[in-house]
């Protein structure tokens, strides 16, 4: 089929393209850029299969009863009804997840920003050294089980032994099984591994700020480092702040394995039981994949909403 010549279609503002012309133009452009599609195809295909489809599928699967062995059976809203009305453990897990999302997340975000700022003030050699030290835990991957030694419930535990030595406590505390303490322990470990890619981006962001901005600021009457931070540094780091925020959302909404490894599964009174742990429970332990999908779907939505709220807030601040 012959389409109109490129000039005729590309002339802007002459007249609105009809729907058919638009479609033809798009098709034409797609044909012209065939090589582009070919080059993104390998990545996008795998991306589709292993990221997009799993995310989208969580909704229809959430409406099913599925145990991997039989064909999925449609149960309508049953899973979601059970989840929000009957499943007390899930409601508790929402609470735990919110603690991480609303308390630990911002805390570790602020901490990684603060650390990046402080490190940036130092001599280049020290900068490199400290960056490495703070980034090492998140890089070392599976090593968080060492914290078992520190929080160990008998007097061989490092924390208990120090506290006993200083006579602050008289009997060892069961840090990881006492419902009063275990969440705090998980929070500490989570903070410990949270200096990841977001932290690196912030570090690099500080490094990239033009020095002359500060000199100009000094002339304009900025008198201390705090004002410098608020008026010069922060506004020019919006993009890095956004990236770090996304990384933070990911890590604080997906707290799971640290709690399971340290406090056992299930933990005392389900205190360290997050939404992710709940999904793990139903997915890997009970093989109720339909129910697990419903849990995942709720988690995805929560993450998307959180992401939107944060980008709104940061977007406002940046302009």
């Amino acid at each position, binding site marked *: 089929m012959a389409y109109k010549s490129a000039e005729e279609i590309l002339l802007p503002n002459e007249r609105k393209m009809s729907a058919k012309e638009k479609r033809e133009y798009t098709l034409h452009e797609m044909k012209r850029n065939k090589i582009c599609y070919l*080059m993104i195809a390998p990545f*996008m295909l795998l991306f589709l299969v*292993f990221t997009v489809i799993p995310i989208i599928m969580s909704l229809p699967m959430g409406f099913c009863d599925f145990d991997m062995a039989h064909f999925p059976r449609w149960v309508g809203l049953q899973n979601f009804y059970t989840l929000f009305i009957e499943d007390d453990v899930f409601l508790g897990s929402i609470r735990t997840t919110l603690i991480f999302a609303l308390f630990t997340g911002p805390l570790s975000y602020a901490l990684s920003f603060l650390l990046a700022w402080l490190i940036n003030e130092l001599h280049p050699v020290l900068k490199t050294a400290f960056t490495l030290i703070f980034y090492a835990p998140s890089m070392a991957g599976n090593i968080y089980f060492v914290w078992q030694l520190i929080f160990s419930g008998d007097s061989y535990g490092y924390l208990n032994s120090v506290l006993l030595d200083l006579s602050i406590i008289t009997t060892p505390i069961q840090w990881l099984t006492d419902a009063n303490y275990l969440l705090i322990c998980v929070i500490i470990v989570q903070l410990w591994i949270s200096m990841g890619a977001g932290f*690196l981006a912030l570090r690099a962001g500080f490094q990239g700020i033009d020095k002359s901005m500060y000199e100009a600021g*000094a002339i304009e009457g900025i008198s201390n480092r705090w004002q410098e931070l608020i008026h010069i540094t922060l506004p020019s780091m919006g993009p890095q702040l956004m990236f770090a925020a996304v990384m933070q959302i990911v890590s604080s909404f997906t707290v799971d394995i640290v709690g399971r490894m340290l406090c056992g599964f299930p933990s005392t009174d389900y205190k360290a039981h997050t939404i992710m742990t709940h999904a793990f429970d139903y997915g890997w332990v009970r093989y109720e*994949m339909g129910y697990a999908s419903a849990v*995942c779907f709720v988690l995805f939505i929560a993450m998307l909403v959180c992401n939107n709220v944060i980008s709104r807030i940061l977007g406002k601040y940046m302009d």
Partner: protein
Amino acid sequence: MSKKNKNKLDIAAQQAAENAAALEALKKRREKEHRKMERSKGTNKRVGKSWKNDVGIFLLLTVLGLFMIFPIYLSVINSMKPVNEFFIFPPKLYVMQPTTDNFRDLFKVANNSWVPFSRNIFNSIFVTVVATFFEVIFASMAAFILAKCRFPGVKFLNQVIVISLLFQSTVIYIMQYIVMAKLGMINTYSALILPLIPSSMGLFLMRQSISQIPDAMIEAAKVDGAGLMKICWGIVMPNNKPALMTIIIFQFQAAWNANGGSMVYDEALKTIPVVVQQIAAAGIARQGAVYASAVILMIPPLAIFIAAQSQVMETMAHAGMKD
């Protein structure tokens, strides 16, 4: 020589010159950025900058740094502790009689399972290398196209990539399992490798970095008659080595630490992290071996990061999100 041919030659020479100029401009910009970074590294006069402040910051960071490094230090000394030293009260912060027994023990225990430990080491290296290799190739190509080409759907795809940064492997693990079960991939190498390849993080970092490369350079190459493939690998990537290095490192870390334990159940397919978990499940008797394996697991990513630290920082400077 005919006039026509001469003309052609002239044009070619001109284009070559343009090309060189664009490259030169990029180099200059890189240098300028580098100088800028160097400058901001220096200790110029700044508001409220005094040695007292610096010492204060240093002390604060040292205290926090000790907190960060302490658990890693603990696992290192524990990997060298003989069994009896695990039960000393109060627990010591150093090893009295360092030994390599734990490492030997680890290999012995691991070798006594169904397959030799060397097989697991091979699996880890194989999965990491293959996943990293293909991720770097695929993500670089896709990043170049998404950053520099205009075609129907490019905006949408860019948005999808940014949103998908939220959904990293841990979150979608269960859903991935269902998909892979449907595709019949469970208990094969592809179950371990394929999900690691489409890393939106790698694509994102690469895209941000490529968008810093001037369009003029790519246009010049296009005029020269180079195809997109050639531009991507011949011009863009050689000028974008820090980003390449960075995504290699991130991918290496992700793949090396990936725990695909639920995706494979055949012992001969398991990677080191899975085996370590199995050994750790034996409890107190295997403490030393567990820490030994943790140290072994920790070393490769750490070493690579230290080696390429400055290039990573350069790439991360462009990691920001501008919507």
